[in-house]
Every structure is written in structure tokens, then in C-alpha cells.
């Protein structure tokens, strides 16, 4: 016995990952794939031979909802960079468009915010094969690409739905319609699937699933030429004074433009109010009725409150099933929680206390940042309703974008809020910077005076 290492001595040997350990990942979305990829990578570095099986119910080769994990399909700047540093470079058949700028629409006007380094630094992609009727056989879905990466690393892919989990003396049994296999560790990367939550709750009784709200996604098939002409390599975002909508975006990708609406319980009426607004209509060719060119639409759920107690001995939930980033960069958050869980499992152990100590802090950081995020979105809602403030922000951004060298304070705040690239805490600190506040107040006051003058002129 090694008396110099008391931690190792007290550790229950059955609750560590060692040669021959078997891990089941339930759900082959981004969090499941990231977990499998990094767990295998860390195990290789440590010289441990393990087996990882990913269970996935969907077929990402099929067009339409059956093969899609409903999402706006933006890979954020920070995630593109982190993945590049990890040696994961998104190939051009996965990237449907490199995004170089954001075009911001308000009732007060439209302005373009360029990427900080004037490079295409954000990717738009389809999570599945594409919308109903898609036939672009040369393209690969993002989720499928990640699964293929895992397979190349040695992960086994099992395209079956998991129907139940059972805790036994020696591990956890994973049950499908055709089989039941025992594992040393089970990863819950099931997104926001309530049925799957129910069997995770059975083996992790304290688990409280995340809270969600309804969003909206649809695709418009415009064709390459019109997309180049009307959207180019810019994602269009809308800060309009419309009920319940916190954020609306049009994202060009391949032959399609994806519309994403986030807010409170988005329904058909709210969608119509958005599509009928002048700012949105202006983005499309006049002669086209966009409702006629929309092959696919859905109202998927999005996290608004993190899960609690998302782990127990041999079980850990990750990605959307645990903690995400409020409204933005959910895939980036999936990468963070998946990697944190992989580190905890391989370097520390798979007991509840290991996950509490080594995994939970990553979730807590996301959850705390989301509290600031809620505040930022509350302020954004106030701004959306205030023509005066919007005019101030608009004029500040326009001026910043005209100057080459100036510090683009408001542009960078909006850029990071829209892209989800930076933590909300960083964004708040930049908003509260005296220079940002002074400039915003000055521009707002000037806006009021200009408006009064132009009214008097009339």
C-alpha cells in the first residue's frame, strides 16, 4: 500500500476508470460526441484502454426532423477557436457558410458589425442532413461529423434508442429493444428528452431536469444566388419591439436561410408578427412569399434553467441535460460540460463525490454566468422597447464601425451578446466600463436632440 498517497488509498477501486472499463454514452449529439472523444483521448494519454459505446436514436443521414437536433446551427467564434486548438478543424463539407459579420436590424435602421479580425470566424451548419427535401449529398451534418470523429478514434456507434437503465451491484445496465449491456459509467447526453430523463431519474433520484421554454426554427429555400445577393456572409439579427421575442436571427447556410426566434413560449402568432415586420420583409426579395419556400419548421425547447444534482455514482448528465448557456452557444456549453465530465471520470473517478468535486464546478460557472445573462437579456428587453436607447446604440455602433482603429466597445458588446462567444460576465463588465456608458449617454442625448430638431424642422 502506498502510504504517501492517502487519497489513492481511500478510493473505492470499483469507482475509477481503468484498463477494460466500459462507458456508455446515451445520446450522440454534440455533448455525447465531445465526451467520448475527450474521454478516449485522455485515457490514451494516461495509457488506459477503455471501451466507449455511443447510443443514438436518430439517423443523421435523413433529411428533416427525423435526422435533426433542431438548432440555429451556429458554431461560435470561441468554439471554433477551442476546437482548432484541440486539432478539430471543421471541414468545408460541414460548414454551410463562414460568417464574417452580423447585420443588426432595428426599427431605427440597419448596421453591419464586422468580426474583430475581419476573418470568417463563425460557422453555420446543419445539425442533421438538412431540411425536408434536402438533397445535397456532398454535405455532412455537424452531429454526424462529430460521431465520425469519435468512430475514427475507436468509439463504437450503436444506432438504437435506449429504453431503460438499471443500477446493479457491479454497474449500470443499459437496455435497448434488442439488448442489455452492463457498463462501469453511463453518460446522460440526451438533450432535453423528457422520456430519457425519467430513466436517468430512476438511477439518480436527486436529479432535477432543466427547465425549458419553446422556441421557433424554420428554413427558407432561397438558393445560392439569392442568398449571396441578400445575405452574403452575414448573419442578420433583429432587435425589434415585438411581444415575447428576445432575439430573432436569419442565418444563411447552403441553399437555405434558417430563421431562429428565441423568447418566451414562442407560438404561431408571435412568428407571424415577426415575419410581417418591415425589417424582416426587407431582407427577402419582394416577389417571393417566404412562407411558400419553407420546407421545415419546428418549435423546439431550449434551456432556461439548469438541471440540479445531475450525477451520482457511475452516472453523469452533460450538455443540455445538465447546464447550458442561456439562449446562446449551447454547443460551446456542451463542449465545456462534456470535457469537464471526461476529465473528472478519467483523471479522478466516477463516484458521486468525484463528479461533485471535479465536474460540478464547470456547471456552476455556467449557471452563475447565466444569472448575469438573465440580467443582460432583461436590459435588452428594455432596450428593445425604447426607441431612444436603440437610437443611441445604433448611432454608437455606426460611428465605431466607420473608424478603423477606435476601440469598438458597443460593437464588441453586441457581437459577443449575439454570438455567445464571451461569458455574460465579461460582457457586463464591458457594458459597465465608464467609456462605454459615457459614449452611450452622449449618443442617446444627441439622438434625442436630433429627433427634436428634425420634428421642429417639419
Amino acid at each position, binding site marked *: 500500500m502506498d502510504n504517501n498517497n492517502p487519497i489513492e488509498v481511500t478510493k473505492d477501486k470499483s469507482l475509477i476508470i481503468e484498463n477494460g472499463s466500459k462507458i456508455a454514452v446515451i445520446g450522440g449529439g454534440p455533448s455525447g460526441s465531445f465526451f467520448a472523444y*475527450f474521454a478516449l*483521448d*485522455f485515457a490514451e*494519454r494516461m495509457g488506459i484502454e477503455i471501451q466507449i459505446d455511443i447510443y443514438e436514436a436518430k439517423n443523421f443521414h435523413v433529411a428533416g426532423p427525423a435526422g435533426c437536433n433542431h438548432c440555429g446551427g451556429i458554431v461560435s467564434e*470561441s468554439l*471554433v*477557436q*477551442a476546437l*482548432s*486548438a*484541440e*486539432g*478539430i*478543424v*471543421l471541414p*468545408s*463539407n460541414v*460548414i*454551410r*457558410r*463562414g460568417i*464574417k459579420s452580423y447585420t443588426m436590424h432595428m426599427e431605427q435602421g440597419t448596421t453591419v458589425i464586422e468580426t474583430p*479580425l475581419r*476573418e*470568417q*470566424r*463563425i*460557422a453555420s451548419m446543419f445539425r442533421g442532413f438538412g431540411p425536408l427535401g434536402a438533397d445535397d449529398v456532398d454535405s455532412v451534418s455537424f452531429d454526424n461529423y462529430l460521431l465520425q470523429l469519435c468512430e475514427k478514434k475507436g468509439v463504437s456507434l450503436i444506432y438504437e434508442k435506449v429504453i431503460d437503465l438499471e443500477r446493479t451491484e457491479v454497474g449500470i445496465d443499459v437496455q435497448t429493444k434488442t439488448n442489455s449491456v452492463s457498463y462501469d459509467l453511463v453518460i446522460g447526453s440526451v438533450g432535453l428528452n423528457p422520456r430519457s430523463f425519467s430513466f436517468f431519474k430512476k438511477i439518480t433520484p436527486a436529479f432535477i431536469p432543466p427547465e425549458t421554454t419553446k422556441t421557433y426554427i424554420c428554413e427558407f429555400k432561397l438558393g445560392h444566388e439569392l442568398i*449571396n445577393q441578400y445575405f452574403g*456572409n452575414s448573419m442578420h439579427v433583429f432587435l425589434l419591439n415585438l411581444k415575447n421575442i428576445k432575439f430573432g436571427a436569419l442565418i444563411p447556410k447552403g441553399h437555405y436561410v434558417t430563421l431562429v426566434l428565441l423568447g418566451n413560449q414562442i407560438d404561431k402568432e408571435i412568428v407571424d408578427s415577426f415575419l410581417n415586420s418591415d425589417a424582416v420583409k426587407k431582407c427577402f426579395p419582394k416577389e417571393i412569399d417566404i412562407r411558400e419556400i419553407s420546407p421545415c419548421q419546428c418549435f423546439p425547447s431550449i434551456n432556461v434553467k439548469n438541471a440540479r444534482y445531475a450525477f451520482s455514482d457511475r452516472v453523469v448528465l452533460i450538455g443540455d441535460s445538465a447546464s447550458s448557456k442561456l439562449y446562446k452557444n449551447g454547443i460551446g456549453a456542451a463542449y*465545456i460540460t462534456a*470535457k469537464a465530465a471526461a*476529465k473528472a471520470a478519467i483523471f479522478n473517478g466516477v463516484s458521486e463525490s468525484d463528479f461533485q468535486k471535479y465536474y460540478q464546478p464547470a456547471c456552476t460557472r455556467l449557471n452563475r454566468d447565466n444569472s448575469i445573462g438573465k440580467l443582460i437579456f432583461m436590459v435588452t428587453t428594455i432596450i428593445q422597447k425604447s426607441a431612444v436607447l436603440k437610437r443611441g446604440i445604433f448611432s454608437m455602433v455606426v460611428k465605431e464601425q466607420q473608424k478603423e482603429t477606435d476601440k469598438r466597445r458597443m460593437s464588441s458588446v453586441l457581437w459577443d451578446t449575439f454570438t455567445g462567444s464571451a461569458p455574460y460576465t465579461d460582457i457586463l463588465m464591458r457594458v459597465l466600463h465608464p467609456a462605454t456608458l459615457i459614449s452611450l449617454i452622449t449618443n442617446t442625448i444627441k439622438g434625442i436632440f436630433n429627433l427634436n430638431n428634425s420634428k421642429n424642422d417639419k
Partner: protein
Amino acid sequence: MTNNSLGHVYNDGEVILKQGSVGDCFYVIQKGMVEIVDETGDKETVVAKLGETDFFGEMGIFEKDVRSCTVRAKGEATILTMDKRSLYKSIQKDPSLAFRLLEKMSNRLRETTKQMGAK
């Protein structure tokens, strides 16, 4: 620039980094190849060729010295720039992000030692 790629496109022979210049960015090859060229003295020596997913310019991140070699595109190459601050912030949050950097730098050291032994 093509629509479905990330970063900046450099044409064949275009210089991405100049030996002796200062810089604090780090680069990841998204597509294509680059060659690392030593321009010391009158002649040029190609010391390495790098391809997709490889990175260069890491010395500018970890040291304050000038760029030790010139890097230019070999054929068309798409390169993503990463700035020093965001890389350090990311490594501070997740130190395992440095595993691959260390592995690659160790590979390069081994290659250089081998080349020096061969001379």
C-alpha cells in the same frame, strides 16, 4: 474567400508571417499547406511543411521574441488566427487545452534534434 470555410485565404507563396517581425498571434491551418522557411543569411531553407489542423506561430504566444522563421502558403491555404489573450484565457480555464500544444511542440523538438544529429 470561399463561402464554406473559416479564417483567411492565402494564395500560393503569400507570406503569412515574416521572419524577424513581431506578433502575438497563433495560427491554425484549416485547409491546405504552408512551409516554414528559415531566411537567415542569403539563402532560404525550408525547415518544415505543415498541413491541415497543424498550427504555427506558437513561439509568439509563449515568448516575447521576434518571429524565428517566415511562414508562407504552399498552394492555396486557409488559416484561422487566434489571438494570444483568448488562447491564454482558454488555457487558464481548461489547462488540458495545452496537451496538444505540448505534444506538437515536443514532436517538433524531436524533429529538430534529429535533423541536427543528421548534419
